[in-house]
C-alpha cells in the first residue's frame, strides 16, 4: 500500500480514494478501511481517469481544494472520486445535458456538497456564465466535436497555466479512421489552440479505443 500524488492509495493494480462520505457508496464500489480512514475502490473499467492513472499518468494536477469544470459529468462515477480528492474546500462544476443522468447525479451531490450540478449543453458556455475561473477542465462528452467543445470551455473558464484533461473516444469521432490517427488529429487541434501536451495515454485494456490527454494552457 503506498500513496501516489499525495491523495490516492495504490496497492498493486488497485487504486483507492479516501471516502468523503464514509459508508456511502456511489456505484457499488468496494470500501476498505486503512489506518482508521475509509477508502473507495476506483474502478478503471468504469472511470477513464482511473484507467489513465493505472496506465502511467505522471502529472496529476487535481489536489485538495482544486476547482474543476467537468463537462459530461454523467451520474458522477468519476466525479465522485475527484470529489474525494478535492475535499470540501474544492468544487466541481458539473455540466450534463441528459436529464436522467442529472437525476442520478443529484443524489451524489446531496451527499457530497462539493459538486454544483448544472444542466446545460457544454457547447453553450453562455448557459452557465456564472461558473468561476477554474484550475482544471475535465472533458468526457463522447461527441464528434469534443475537442472543439473542450477548447471553447478552456478559453472561457480555465485559468492561465491551468490544465485540461480530455478523454478521447475514437469511435465517437471517426468510425473509419484508425484510433491512432484520430488521437493524432485531435491532439493537433489542441496544439494549434495553444495547449502544451503533457501526457497522452491509451486506456486499454480498461477501455477500448480510448486515449486520455493531459494538456496545459
Amino acid at each position: 500500500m503506498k500513496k501516489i500524488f499525495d491523495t490516492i492509495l495504490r496497492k498493486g493494480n488497485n487504486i483507492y480514494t479516501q471516502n468523503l462520505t464514509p459508508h456511502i457508496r456511489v456505484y457499488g464500489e468496494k470500501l476498505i478501511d486503512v489506518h482508521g480512514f475509509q477508502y473507495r475502490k476506483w474502478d478503471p473499467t468504469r472511470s477513464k481517469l482511473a484507467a489513465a492513472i493505472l496506465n502511467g499518468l505522471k502529472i496529476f494536477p487535481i489536489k485538495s481544494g482544486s476547482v474543476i469544470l467537468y463537462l459530461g459529468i454523467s451520474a458522477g462515477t468519476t466525479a465522485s472520486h475527484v470529489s474525494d480528492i478535492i475535499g470540501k474546500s474544492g468544487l466541481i462544476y458539473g455540466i450534463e445535458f441528459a436529464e436522467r443522468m442529472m437525476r442520478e447525479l443529484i443524489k451524489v451531490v446531496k451527499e457530497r456538497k462539493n459538486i454544483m450540478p448544472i444542466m446545460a449543453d457544454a457547447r453553450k458556455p453562455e448557459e452557465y456564465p456564472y461558473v468561476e475561473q477554474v484550475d482544471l477542465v475535465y472533458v468526457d462528452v463522447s461527441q464528434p466535436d469534443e475537442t472543439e467543445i473542450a477548447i471553447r470551455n478552456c478559453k472561457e473558464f480555465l485559468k492561465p497555466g491551468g490544465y485540461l484533461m480530455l478523454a478521447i473516444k475514437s469511435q465517437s469521432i471517426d468510425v473509419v479512421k484508425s484510433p491512432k490517427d484520430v488521437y493524432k488529429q485531435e491532439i493537433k487541434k489542441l496544439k494549434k489552440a495553444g495547449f502544451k501536451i503533457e501526457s497522452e495515454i491509451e486506456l486499454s485494456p480498461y477501455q477500448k479505443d480510448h486515449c486520455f490527454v493531459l494538456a496545459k494552457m
Partner: protein
Amino acid sequence: MSKKQVAHICKSTIGFFAFDSKGRLIYYELFSPNAENAFKKLTGNFSQSFLKSLSGYEIKQDKIALKFMRENFRDYAISLGFAKTNSDLNRFLSELGILLTNANASISITKDKLIIQASNTLDELTKQINVFSEHLTEWFGLHYPELKADNEKYAKIVSEYGARENIPKFRKSTGIKFDKCDEEIVKKYAYFICQAIAMRKQIEDYIKNSMKEICPNISSLVDPLLGARLLSKAGSLQNLAKLSSSTIQILGAEKALFRHLRNKKHIKSPKYGLIFMSKYIQNSPKHIRGKIARLVSSKLMMAARIDFYSNRFEPKLKEELERAMRKMRK
C-alpha cells in the same frame, strides 16, 4: 461634453456586480447567503436598487464584467463576507445548483406531487368502485339473487356471461327474468366496473414503482401505497421529512386528535393514524401495538429524511426495525 463612464455589470451566484473598464469593482449587491434566495435573484432581473446606484454610469451587461468576476470570484465571496470559508461557499453553490437544475428539469421535486395525485385518485377510485359494485349487486340481484362473489369476481361474471342462464352451474333462481335489453345494459355496466378495477391496478403499480424510485427507504419499511398516503397527508416529501416521529405516528388521525384536544378528560389521544395499516402493527399482539407504532414511526421519520435529502437506499433501517421488533415480542 464629458462622456459618462461605463459600468460593466453581471450576475454572479453570490450577487450583482459592477466593474469599471479596468476591472475595478465599482459597486456590488450581495445576495443573502442561502440557496433559495440566491436562486430567486439569479433567475430574476437586476434589482432596482442596484441599477439606481449606478445611475451616473452608462450600464453595459457584458462579458467583460463576467471575466473580472470569474477571476476574483473566491476572493470576493470571502473578503466581502458572503461566505466564511471555501467549504461554506461550496456547500452553498452545490445547493444552488440543485435548485437551478430542478427548476430547469422539473425533476425530483415534482415527482412526489405526481405520486400524491395518483394516491388521492386511487383512494377515491377505490371508494367509487365499492359504490358501483354495490349498485351492480343490487341491480343484477333482482335477476339472480343467489349469485355470491366478491366485488371483483361478481363484476367479471356478469360482464362475461350476462343473463343467469349463461353462468356456469346455474340451476334455478327466485329472481325476475331479464329480457335482452335488460341484460345488455347491466352487462355493459359490469364491464365498466371491470375496467375501473383494472385502472385501479395500474395506478397501484405506478405508485409502487414511483415510490420505490423517489422514496426507496419509506418503501422498504411500509407498503409503498401506505407510504404514498403518508406523503399525501404531509403534502410533499419535503414536508414529511420535517415531521417529528410522533406526528408521523398519528398522521391521518387528525379528527381523533382534535376530539382529544377538545375533551382531554374523556377522549384518549389517538395511538396511531395511517401507519396502523402497517403489517408490523397488524401482526403484533394488541398490548404492544402502541410501542410498535412508536418504533415504526421513528424509523419512518429517518427514512423520509434520507429519501428527501439524499435519496440513497439504506437497507440498515429495515434491519434495525426488525431487530427491535424481535426484541419487543420476546
